[in-house]
């Protein structure tokens, strides 16, 4: 009886084709991706039929924190209504996010110090440079120095703790009885001033016709209301959001956008 000889085959599989595919996929993802920006808290925006995209450049985002959803807090609403701001600069490097942030900070601090002569905020150049690297922040001016002194990990932890009274930009006292602006309004004023300055610089020597073509922070802020976007959770009470609106109106920034997710017209709303 002859034995059936099993031919030994090599188990090597040619991975070249596989490698080609993965490299292609990788290239696709690398080219199309925009990274998720680090935000201290997650909010789920309500959906709307508006199809206008959020601009990637020249944008100031105001984030309103939602009530605690993890169920760890006894009073979930304690985490609600904290304000955070993030600045995104222009498309080219002449007005990068870092530069815009530093300009905003310097302007805001000078407005604040002008109003609080007894306890001014004094930042070192190192701390100012550090601010340029932070995507989203939210704390009163009095805590700014403390926040900038923290390491990156500690800062994330600090800003992520919504129940900490030192987190979130104060917004109380809109009607400024004593003539002082609250911290949020100081930031809004700084945004307005800086945006106007940028616009003046870019439009210097241009005819009004040409100036209208200039796309920058100021132009998008004032003309189209695209420069400021308010991002809030769908379950946040209107009264909380209303306070933000009211402050924006007081600071004459009454044209702005609300961040939403997309849905179709036929979809039931309820």
């Amino acid at each position, binding site marked *: 009886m002859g034995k059936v000889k099993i031919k030994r085959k090599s188990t090597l599989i*040619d991975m*070249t084709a596989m490698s080609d595919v*993965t490299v292609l996929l990788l290239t696709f993802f690398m080219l199309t991706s925009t990274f998720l920006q680090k935000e201290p808290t997650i909010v789920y925006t*309500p959906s*709307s039929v508006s199809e*206008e995209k959020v601009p990637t450049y020249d944008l100031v985002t105001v984030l309103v924190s939602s009530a605690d959803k993890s169920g760890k807090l006894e009073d979930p609403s304690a985490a609600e209504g904290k304000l955070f701001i993030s600045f995104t600069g222009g498309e080219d490097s002449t007005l990068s996010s870092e530069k815009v942030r530093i300009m905003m900070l310097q302007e805001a601090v000078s407005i604040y110090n002008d109003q609080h002569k007894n306890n001014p905020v004094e930042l070192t150049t190192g701390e100012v440079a550090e601010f340029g690297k932070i995507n989203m922040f939210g704390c009163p001016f009095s805590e700014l120095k403390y926040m900038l002194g923290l390491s990156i990990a500690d800062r994330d932890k600090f800003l992520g703790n919504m129940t900490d009274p030192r987190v979130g930009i104060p917004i109380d006292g809109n009607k400024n009885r004593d003539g002082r602006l609250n911290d949020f309004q100081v930031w809004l004023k700084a945004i307005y001033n800086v945006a106007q300055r940028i616009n003046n610089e870019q439009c210097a020597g241009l005819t009004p016709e040409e100036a209208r073509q200039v796309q920058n922070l100021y132009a998008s802020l004032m003309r189209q209301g695209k420069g400021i976007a308010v991002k809030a959770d769908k379950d946040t009470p209107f009264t909380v959001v209303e306070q933000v609106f009211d402050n924006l109106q007081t600071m004459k920034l*009454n044209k702005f956008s609300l961040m939403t997710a997309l849905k179709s017209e036929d979809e039931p709303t*309820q």
Partner: protein
Amino acid sequence: MAQIEQSDKGGKKKKGAQKKMQIHVDFTPMVDMNMLLITFFMLCTTMIKSQTLQIALPTNEEVKKEQMSQAKASEAITLILDTEYEGNKPKVDAETGKTVHHIYYYEGIADTLFQTANYLRHEQFIGNQNREPQGIRRILRKKNEEVMVQYDLLKTRWKNKEITKEEFDKLAKENAADSMKTRPVVVIKPGPNTTYEGLINALDEMQINQISRYSIELPNRVDTLLLRHYEQVNGVQIIRPTVR
């Protein structure tokens, strides 16, 4: 990893002939690494960009009474918004999984003498059913019929590629602001329990129904009066204690 096999199966090699070599490079680790990178990029990217809804609010500065524009009573419609709560969370409908919002609306001037029947009516955000507007959308559409007829015509022209998207946007904007047509003035009044989603839903209806004149105000005493009376007549509780 990489193997070089010499194919020297028997036979004498000719002198001077080049050795035939087969080169195998094992790409498995390369694929492994690529897969890891792909996973990383997939997890770190946002494919869906959020949308924005533009809004323009009036200034907070005092405006003199003479300078205020008055809307005709026949054009006005007031929506009082409310969100139902369960405990300290917005109530979610078990069937649709969406938050329950209510709208109480009246047309024209508030009828505080309650002489006309149905001075205050109840609606909900239902959206479209079988491509037909339902709920509050139907009410608002009826109010803005003249603009909507023209808008639908424009939309068909755009769908048939007779006009471009830019032209369509421009014409639709002109149409919505056409003062020759009867257009409603909508006052949105979010009650104390309304969530942000309720407001966005209402603003959405403005956009869907091409309503160019609307404002957001807080409910006043007259509105509470109407709601209280509605409760008495219909035997329901609609004014709930403020949750937050």
